[in-house]
C-alpha cells in the first residue's frame, strides 16, 4: 500500500474528510440558495401574509371580546365578564387585561408557529426530497462513490437547511414582532436554546429519514409531501396552541397525539411556554411541561438519527441491487 493510501485510513483523515463533506454539502444550500433574491418574496414576504391571516382573525375575536367587556348596558353597567356582568370597574379592567394578554399570546403563538413552519417546510420539501433530486441531476452517484460516511452527507444537508432556513425564520420572526407588535417574555434563555436545538435536531433527523424513503419512492414522494403539508399544519398546532385540541371531546385528543409525533409540535409547545410563560391561556393549553417535552424531543432526535442512518444504509444497498442509485439517463 502506498504512503498516500496509508494516510487515508487514519482516524484524523477520516474525521477531516467527514467534516469537509458536511461543509461541502451544506455550502450550496447556504450560499447558493441565497443567490436567488426571489427567496425574500417567496419565503419571507409570502409566509408573513399567511401569518397575517391568522393574526387578523385572532385580533378580530380579541376585539369582539373586548367590545363585550367595555359595552355598558343597564343590565351590565360594567360590561360583560364572560357570561356574567362584571361586578365593578376593577373586574372589568381585569377581564379586559386578560383578553389583551390572551390575544397577544395567540398572535405570538402564530408568529412562533410561522417561524417553525419555515423549518417544517424545509424538511418536507427540501430535505426529504433532496436525495431524489440529487439522483435526478446526477450528484447522488458521486456522493455514494465518495469515501465519506453517509451521515456526513445527510448532516451537511441538515446543517445547510438549518442555516438557510434560520435566515428566513428570523426574518419572519422579526417582521412578526415589528408588524404585529407581539411581546415575548423569555424567562430561561438557555432552556429556550436547548428546546430550539433539540427540536431542530429531531426535525431534521426526521427529514434525514424521509430523505432515504423518498429516494425509494421517487416522484410519488411529491404527492406525499403535498398530502402531509396542510394536515400537519393543523395537527401540529402551527397556528394555535396544540393543547387546545385536547379540550375538544372525541377527535381532538386523537389529532393532538398524532400531531405530537412531529417534533415541531412538542418543540413549538415548549417554545411557546418559554416565551409566553406557562401561565398563558390560563395554563390550560399546553400538552406537557417544558422539561417533559425537552426529554421527549431529545429522545426523538436520537431515535430519528439512528433510524435515518439505518434507512439510508438499507436503501443504498437496495438501490445498488436494483440499479436505482444512478440518474435516469445513465
Amino acid at each position, binding site marked *: 500500500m*502506498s504512503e*498516500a*493510501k496509508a494516510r*487515508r*485510513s487514519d482516524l484524523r483523515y477520516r474525521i477531516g474528510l467527514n467534516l469537509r463533506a458536511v461543509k461541502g454539502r451544506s*455550502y*450550496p444550500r447556504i*450560499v*447558493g*440558495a441565497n*443567490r*436567488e433574491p426571489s427567496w425574500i418574496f417567496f419565503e419571507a414576504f409570502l409566509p408573513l401574509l399567511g401569518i397575517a391571516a391568522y393574526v387578523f382573525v385572532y385580533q378580530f375575536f380579541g376585539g369582539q371580546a373586548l367590545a363585550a367587556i367595555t359595552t355598558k348596558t343597564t343590565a351590565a353597567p360594567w360590561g360583560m365578564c364572560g357570561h356574567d356582568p362584571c361586578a365593578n370597574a376593577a373586574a372589568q379592567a381585569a377581564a379586559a387585561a386578560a383578553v389583551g394578554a390572551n390575544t397577544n399570546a395567540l398572535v405570538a403563538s402564530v408568529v412562533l408557529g410561522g417561524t417553525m413552519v419555515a423549518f417544517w417546510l424545509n424538511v418536507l420539501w427540501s430535505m426529504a426530497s433532496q436525495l431524489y433530486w440529487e439522483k435526478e*441531476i*446526477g*450528484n447522488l*452517484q*458521486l456522493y*455514494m*462513490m*465518495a*469515501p465519506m460516511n453517509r451521515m456526513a452527507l445527510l448532516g451537511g444537508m441538515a446543517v445547510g437547511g438549518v442555516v438557510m432556513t434560520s435566515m428566513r425564520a428570523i426574518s419572519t420572526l422579526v417582521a412578526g414582532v415589528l408588524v404585529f407588535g407581539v411581546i415575548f417574555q423569555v424567562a430561561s434563555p438557555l432552556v429556550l436554546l436547548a428546546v430550539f436545538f433539540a427540536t431542530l435536531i429531531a426535525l431534521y433527523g426526521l427529514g434525514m429519514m424521509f430523505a432515504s424513503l423518498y429516494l425509494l419512492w421517487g416522484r410519488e414522494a411529491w404527492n406525499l409531501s403535498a398530502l402531509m403539508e396542510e394536515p400537519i399544519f393543523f395537527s401540529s398546532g402551527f397556528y394555535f396552541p396544540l393543547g387546545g385540541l385536547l379540550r375538544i371531546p372525541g377527535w381532538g385528543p386523537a389529532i393532538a397525539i398524532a400531531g405530537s409525533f412531529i417534533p415541531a409540535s412538542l418543540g413549538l409547545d415548549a417554545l411557546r411556554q418559554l416565551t409566553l410563560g406557562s401561565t398563558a391561556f390560563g395554563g390550560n393549553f399546553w400538552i406537557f411541561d417544558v422539561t417533559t417535552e425537552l426529554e421527549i424531543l431529545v429522545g426523538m432526535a436520537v431515535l430519528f438519527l439512528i433510524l435515518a442512518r439505518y434507512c439510508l444504509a438499507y436503501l443504498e*444497498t437496495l438501490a*445498488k*441491487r*436494483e*440499479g436505482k*442509485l*444512478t*440518474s435516469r*439517463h*445513465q
Partner: protein
Amino acid sequence: MSYAVETRDLTRIFAGKKKRRRKAGEEVDESVGPVTALDNVSLKIEEGELFGMLGPNGAGKTTLIKILATLLLPTSGQALVAGHDVSKDPFPIRQVINMVSGGETSGYGLLTARENIIFGLWDKRNAKVRMLSTGQRQKMNMIRGFVTDPDILFLDEPTLGLDVNAARVIREYVTNWVRGQKGKTVLLTTHYMAEADQMCDRIAIIDKGKILACDTPENLKRMIRTETTFRLEVDAIRDLTTFSTMQGVKNFSHKDDIAKNRSFLTFILEDEGPVAEILSTITLQGKKVHSLQKSEPTLEDVFISMVGRGFE
C-alpha cells in the same frame, strides 16, 4: 501480481420492466427484459495501465464502470478494485477511485465553477455552472475527477458531445496523467475507435455484455491482418442481402448519409477475390460507385469482423 481492476465471471442482469406503449390507438403494457447487461465478464487491468473498453451503446460499458465504482451490485461473479471486493468491501475502494461520465449534469447550477470544483476553468471561475456550455461543463467534470488525485480513474465516454479541440485536450491530459505518474490507472469506455486506438495500452471489445477480445490495439488489428478491408462510397443502396451470402465476404457494415444520398460500405474479405462481384452487384442495382479504397484495418474493422456490424 496486483491488479488495479480484476473481474471474474461478472454478470449483471437488470430485472424486467413494464412499459406503456401505444398500439393501434390503445395504451398497452408491455414487459421488457430482463436484460443481461454483463455476461460473465472476466478481465484484468494492471496498475499504471490506460485500459479501454470499446463497444457500441448498450454494450455494457457503463454497467461495468458502475459496478467497479461501487454504485451497482453484480448479479453474480466478482469484481475487485485495488484488491477489494466491490460488494463486500467498498469503503477502501472509494478512497482511491473517482469517476467522470460524459454528458454528466452534476454540480449545482447556482454555484460558480470555482465553488463546484475549487479550481480550473480560470476564465470562467465566477460563472454560475448553469451558464456554462456543455463543453465547459464537461471540462469542469473532468477537473472534478482529478481533484481527489485518485489512483484509479473511471472515465465513461469522457469526450461525449465535445468539439474536436476540447476532446483532444482531454485525451492529451488523461494520457499525460497516466504516463507521467507511477501507479495511476485509467479505465476508459468509449465508442470512438480513434480515441481508444490513440490512447489505450490495451482494449477490450465488448458487445451485448460479452468481452469479444482483449489485447493491445496493434494486436487486435493484427488479428484481421490476414483479411482485406475495402471501403466503398456508393449511391444510397437498400438491398444488402446479397453481400451477406457472397462467397469470400467475411463480414460487412454499412452507414447511410441521407443528406448526400450515399451509402458507405465496409467489407472484411478473406482476399481480394470478391471485389469484382461486389462491384457488379452494386452496378447491377443501377447504383454508381463513387470511391473504392483498400485500407489498413482499424479497430472498427476488428469489431465488424467479430460482430458483423458497425457501431452506428
